């Protein structure tokens, strides 16, 4: 009976989501206040931003979209590269791998904690812009959508890198930084994409941060390189690719 299948499917989905949420809550309780996550997720983007913003003649308020974008990048992708190697070392990750949940839900649950952490942290530059510099937000729904998609995209990227089978947090962080650091230079955060050389412009198309930053810029200034709809579609494609790749790598590396 199709109705029974539908009911069974809904029940399974509800169970999977509930287990994913349990994993995310566990990470929130354990890892949100770990020193290396605070350094990597909050201080690192702040200092990176200050280093580049200092010396720019632009009014501080105009730098807020870029600060939000790199905060989302660093904070969202910082939880799982710390939590998963630690859990491998203390063998609690085996508990998750042997639980009656799909790998997709495990990856989703892990990413969820980075996603929520990042959304909260990104509210700090957002509030800073509003309170200190009276930075106007022209399109709040686009900003919220941009923050949600960008945050989830980078949280999944962090989970993907954490699939690398090591018990050493530093190893995952080093690999991740070889990707994260170049992203902030090629994605229009500090240098507008239109002023980059042609090769740089082409490379920018392969960076998810380009589309997240583009949407945030649109939300603040009404101007963007691409349409917000295109940004949404591309970010969703990146999330899908990272989720599938993470799923495959966790399967492969657990053999």
């Amino acid at each position, binding site marked *: 009976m199709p109705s029974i299948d539908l009911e069974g499917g809904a029940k399974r989905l509800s*169970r999977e989501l*509930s*287990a994913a949420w*349990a*994993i995310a809550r*566990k990470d929130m*309780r*354990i890892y949100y206040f770990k020193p290396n996550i605070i350094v990597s997720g909050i201080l690192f983007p702040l200092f990176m931003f200050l280093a580049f913003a200092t010396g720019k003649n632009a009014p501080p308020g105009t730098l807020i979209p870029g600060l939000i974008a790199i905060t989302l990048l660093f904070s969202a992708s910082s939880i799982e590269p710390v939590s998963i190697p630690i859990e491998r070392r*203390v*063998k*609690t990750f*085996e*508990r*998750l*791998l*042997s*639980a*009656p*949940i*799909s790998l997709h839900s495990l990856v989703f649950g892990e990413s969820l904690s980075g996603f929520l952490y990042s959304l909260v942290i990104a509210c700090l530059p957002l509030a800073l812009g509003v309170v200190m510099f009276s930075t106007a937000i022209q399109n709040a729904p686009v900003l919220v959508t941009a923050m949600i998609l960008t945050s989830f995209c980078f949280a999944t990227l962090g989970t993907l890198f954490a699939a690398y089978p090591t018990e050493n947090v530093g190893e995952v962080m080093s690999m991740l930084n070889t990707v994260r650091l170049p992203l902030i230079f090629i994605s229009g955060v500090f240098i507008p994409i239109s002023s980059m050389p042609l090769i740089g412009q082409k490379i920018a198309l392969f960076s998810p941060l380009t589309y997240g930053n583009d949407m945030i810029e649109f939300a603040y200034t009404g101007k963007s390189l691409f349409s917000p709809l295109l940004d949404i579609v591309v970010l969703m494609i990146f999330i899908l690719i990272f989720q599938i790749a993470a799923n495959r790598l966790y399967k492969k590396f*657990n*053999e």
Partner: protein
Amino acid sequence: MEYMEAIEVSHLIKKFGPLTALNDITFSVGEGETFGFLGPNGAGKTTTIRILTGISSPTSGTATIFGHDIERDTIAARQSMGIVSENSNVYDDLTAWQNMIFSAQLYHVGRKEREKKTNELLTIFGLHERRNDKVHGFSKGMKRRLTLAMGLVNSPRLLFLDEPTSGLDVQSNLIIRDVVTDLVGKGVTVFLTTHNIEEANVMCDRVAIINKGNIAAIDAPERLKKTIQSVQSIEFSFNHNSADQLDELRRLPLVNDAQKAGDKFKLYTQEPSEVIDAVMAYARTHNLKVISITTLGPSLEDVFIRLTGLKRAGGAVHAID
């Protein structure tokens, strides 16, 4: 109700590159059975468990848990299992209560049931008073008890127990053994891996001995012992025991091997009555009194040593590589 095997493993092969970790193993475990899985380090025990729990995939062959293929129907198969790993893999930064609830959530136990079960299990394992304490302050035994409690939170029909009592204090050891005995009484199937062969001897209906990826033997402990009746021993104690006597005793006629454990000597032989005479003569010659003397049949450890190609040296067991 139709009888169903708890575990059915058929022609399981697992290769890691050129290394064959499991070489075509086949066995089954009946529902309600306590099944011991013994083998030296690197024999393939962990690989087998990782396949049976769906963490790893076999190169070929199949494994089913209560009829669910572990590869194709992984989630349904896992739902009926409880897994207690060798490491006490609990979250140190969570309280005992939070660990239990988290485990219950992973196994889809409903809210009311998980709170009831958590209360019940923490009480059974003597942890209820410490339920709101973070686990990092717990002793090794308490962590082990919590690990077992977490493995039981979904009321599993099949429990994988990996080294349940290794290195534990007496209290934790007794609690864990009592709980496992109680579970067995309730019809739970137990798949036990342990280095403590005496534990397997006492607890298991059947044991499998795996060596170098092959099942060397699989049977009830008593039947396995009968296969090596030639390995008998006598155990005795003198009024004065010293390590120097061991070499002399080892050289007695018909003695194949000798061990000293505490205040007792153990001599392995195929002819116990003649070795008893030789020991009595040795005692007279050296002005010693025999305090106690017992003849022993082969132990499960003897079977294990015989089948895995290990050898005794100086009372310890060493691998022959």
